[in-house]
């Protein structure tokens, strides 16, 4: 599956393992015969993996509706890889009206039935309730991890931190929960190594961080990521589901309440307000925008986010990412220049 709007609580409830696809940046050639040059590297990378059979181990693919590029990815996938089951989850795009809320509930219920059908089982309330509990626990622990690291950025390196976060979207969720509990317990006890107390605190904002090296490079440049506004980051973890109501209702409610991705519509300035709140809460000194080239939803939001940050006098820098990043050395210099002004 892709996208933090894929209702993976339902997938996990069905006894299937939800594995998030991040795409590859290497050796793209098959996808180029289906997608023109002006498509984002995420969609291209995912299609490449689908076509070169590296995703042959999955039984099916679940594609929620996101942006224009993603919606065509779904079509191209369906037409070219017929062996796997293929479910589109056509979520509402605006989520702040009564009809949209109703539709969101309808779509998730439809997905529950569709998934049950392709897997040949009935996904019951009890199964959903168990999954909701697991996800709540994982999300609460990851939030805890965010807080620990925010208070003590040196306690765990950026690269390790990123690995722990990414694993939440790939590993067997029960096993992950066990390991995560251990990690958080240990980190709570650990005394922070105060090596570079002067490191500048930064928030990372964007869609998907497909380049974990960035964390390390920023640290070398004298900064540290203390929070993020990424769809493979905090946007995915935030928000708990109410365990006292019907599970599907609880799942729906969380998707309606969470901070939106820019391909969805809620309030006109909601994302900007959220970003400023994150910066303040995490006592960050600056923001790094990590935008994928050709990503329309994020590119449309950038100017107004930028304006709101300017009004708040929060410094920021923009890193436009192509499939291939500039060399680590170059990047480090760019970050250093930015960090010096903080």
């Amino acid at each position: 599956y892709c996208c933090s709007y894929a209702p993976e609580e339902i997938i996990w409830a069905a006894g299937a393992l939800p594995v998030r696809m991040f795409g590859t940046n290497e050796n793209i050639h098959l996808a180029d015969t289906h997608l023109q040059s002006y498509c984002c590297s995420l969609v291209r990378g995912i299609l490449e993996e689908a076509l070169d059979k590296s995703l042959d181990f999955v039984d099916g693919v679940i594609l929620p509706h996101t942006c224009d590029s993603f919606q065509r990815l779904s079509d191209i996938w369906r037409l070219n890889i017929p062996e796997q089951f293929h479910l589109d989850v056509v979520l509402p795009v605006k989520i702040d009206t009564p009809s949209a809320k109703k539709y969101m509930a309808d779509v998730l219920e439809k997905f529950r039935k569709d998934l049950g059908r392709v897997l040949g089982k009935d996904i019951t309330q009890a199964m959903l309730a168990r999954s909701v509990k697991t996800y709540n626990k994982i999300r609460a622990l990851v939030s805890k991890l965010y807080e620990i690291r925010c208070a003590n950025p040196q306690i765990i390196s950026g690269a390790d931190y990123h690995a722990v976060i990414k694993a939440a979207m790939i590993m067997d969720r029960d096993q992950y929960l066990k390991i995560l509990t251990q990690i958080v317990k240990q980190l709570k006890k650990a005394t922070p190594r105060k090596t570079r107390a002067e490191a500048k605190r930064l928030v990372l904002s964007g869609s998907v961080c497909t380049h974990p090296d960035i964390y390390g490079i920023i640290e070398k440049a004298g900064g540290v990521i203390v929070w993020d506004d990424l769809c493979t980051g905090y946007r995915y973890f935030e928000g708990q589901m109410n365990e006292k109501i019907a599970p599907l209702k609880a799942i729906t409610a969380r998707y309606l309440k969470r901070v939106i991705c820019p391909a969805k519509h809620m309030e006109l300035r909601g994302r900007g307000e959220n970003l400023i709140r994150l910066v303040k809460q995490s006592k960050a000194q600056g923001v790094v925008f990590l935008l994928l080239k050709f990503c329309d939803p994020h590119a449309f939001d950038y100017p107004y986010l930028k304006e709101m940050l300017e009004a708040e006098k929060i410094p920021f820098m923009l890193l436009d990412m192509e499939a291939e990043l500039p060399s680590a050395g170059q990047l480090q210099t760019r970050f250093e220049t930015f960090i010096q002004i903080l």
Partner: protein
Amino acid sequence: MKKAISEFFKMVLIFLVGKFKKFTLRFKKTKTMKDYMMVYYSQAKSARLTGKKVAWITSGGPVEPLIAMDVIPVYPENHGAMIGASKMGGHLCELAENMGYSADLCSYARSDISCATVNGGPIGGLPKPDMLVCCNNICGTVLKWYEVQARYFNVPLFIMDTPFCHTEYTKEMGRYVRAQFDEYFVFLEKACGRKFDFDKLKEVGHLSHQGQLLWQAVLDTATHKPSPMSAFDAFYHLALIVTLRGTKDVIDYYTWLVGYMKDRIARGIGAVPNEKYRLLWDNIPIWHRTRWLSEKFASHDACLVADTYTTAWCGALKYVDENNFIDSAAEAHARIYLNIGVDQMAKMVIEMIDKYDVDGFVLHSNRSCKPYSFGQLDIQKIVERERGIPCLMLEADMTDERSFSESQISTRIDAYMEIIKERKDKK
């Protein structure tokens, strides 16, 4: 203050010019497209004087309720096409880029966003909106674009969310879109300060449906050999069904146009003097090069007889029940050409290939429009497999003329036409 006064006088002037034009038009037998557009834009631009409200709306949006409430609809996309045709797109796009908008975003959106701040472009900018109506049945770009404008103008925004129909239009979607029509009526009541006029809507819905049927009839004349019109003519005449859908003017004009085309057929006049090869066009026109392209193809005795773009304004007709406008409009808006799966698009392309009996398929891979362009390579493969006709893909942008390479495109068209000729002559 001085600026406000001069603005006011400008508006009065525009208003008077429009009135005068409308008056003189009464005596003119065949009104041209230019006449209609001039009256339309002058009315829209002087709306403040006449106390009418102005709504900006996306091209695939439900305009009929606006007309029923006497709100003047304005289409930034049509404006974008005008900007493109007058070769002002590059400059306006550059302005938007300076504002922080990436050069990879849709050039309609880029030029409109910057145009609003400088009142540039061929008609000195669009009239300020009192409300915005955005229907995402064409793309997700319009959602983001209208959000930008809603922040800029600080006016209410209504979003008609039409879920994408990859393979099906589910009953859940039906309920959702239908419910939004009710929300839309409430939105308009609030914005206009009076009750929604359902009787008028019926009437407008009827006119809109008739207009679309007539537009289809216009396009159908191109099935004749030689074709009395080309896709380039369709691009030109399209403006009315886009901007004035639901009014009587559309009916008058297209009734005349159908007659005109039929007359050309009767007299054996073709759009291309020596039509030997017939082609189908895909995607939005390259507005800044329509004349050049048209002459280029004509020089090879080739006529682009039809296209998937102008057909979109009547492509969902099969879902419309004119006696039940609201319910059927929900489905028709959700199932337009750009809101369906690639395989269904390919199917419609193949139907057009058969209907217009074309020898080749030309695809404009349009950097601006991702939902229209991604999937084209698959459509091309399907067409080649199913119908075996040669296809040509041209890389360009509809309004941003900066990246257009005339010599390269010219060479590619020449080479492509050689293939077409060879195949046809063999037959």
